[in-house]
């Protein structure tokens, strides 16, 4: 255990570097953990575990390289090895109420739509968020993961390939399938919310 690598650093120096380079990433890391586990406590544990591992293996982290990708990779591996088996099933939420609300109220005529978008403040925004999150959560975890990494966290394909240990071609095909799945899921719902404007172009 007493490998001498990286022992040039005193504990104070190591801690200072760790704090400066890795701790600022806690926000995206926690969000990633939550989107994977769909549970706040599990996300909390997963982030703790990730940082602890990162600390133990900090000597393997090359300063100045992509700290965010490195941490995401550790977290994703911890998730697969330790969490996936015991992770709780995503709670089944019934969104049919929301859907039928928009299908009946929103589609009638322009006046209805206008009054709907007047109220498009907080509560409606939250409903959209819930709907989109539930569509995302219903994806198999491998597909959900590439969407999170690409669309929510802005990683490049190359970074994703490293984080996930898969070829870039696989990143690409997973993204494609995940997006097609989401489009299908969200289509009927989104039409009433102005996301899909295709109808306007039909003539």
């Amino acid at each position, binding site marked *: 255990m007493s490998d001498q690598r990286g022992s040039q650093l005193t*504990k104070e120096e190591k*801690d200072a570097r*760790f*704090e400066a380079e890795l*701790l600022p990433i*806690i*926000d995206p890391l*926690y*969000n990633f953990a*939550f989107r994977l586990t769909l549970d*706040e406590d599990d*996300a*909390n544990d997963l*982030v*703790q575990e990730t*940082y*602890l591992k990162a*600390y*133990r293996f900090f000597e393997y982290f090359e300063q100045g390289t992509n700290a965010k990708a490195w941490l995401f990779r550790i977290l994703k591996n911890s998730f697969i090895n330790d969490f996936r088996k015991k992770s709780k099933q995503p709670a089944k939420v019934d969104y049919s109420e929301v859907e039928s609300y928009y299908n009946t109220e929103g589609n009638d005529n322009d006046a209805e739509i206008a009054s709907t978008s007047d109220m498009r403040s907080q509560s409606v*925004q*939250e409903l*959209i*968020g819930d709907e*989109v*999150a539930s569509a*995302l959560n219903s994806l198999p975890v491998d597909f959900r993961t590439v*969407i999170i990494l*690409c*669309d*929510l966290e802005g990683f*490049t*394909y190359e970074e994703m390939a490293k984080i996930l240990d898969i070829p870039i071609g696989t990143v*690409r095909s997973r*993204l*494609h399938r995940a*997006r*097609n799945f*989401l*489009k299908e899921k*969200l289509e009927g719902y*989104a039409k009433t919310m102005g*996301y*899909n*404007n*295709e109808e306007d*172009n039909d003539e």
Partner: protein
Amino acid sequence: MKTIATKPNQVSANSGGNPDCEKIVSLLDIIIDGEATEEDRTYFFSHVETCQECFAAHQKHEQLKRFLRENIQRKVVPTNLLSSIQSVIKTTA
């Protein structure tokens, strides 16, 4: 816009079996993610200019990406998480 005639089509999402359109669909992701080469981009945008279906497919793909980014609410990190990590680190050799 050339229409290349019949290839026994498996029905593909929005291509009607046109091999150009099929290629466009396969480029959608690298285009919206900024991962396409200059050559791919040139090919893509010159096709999309004249092909209504591929134009719509591109719009949709792009809108989905934006829609997700704008509507997935970010979680707030629990207040004690950072400090508990820091204190574990301090006591770790």
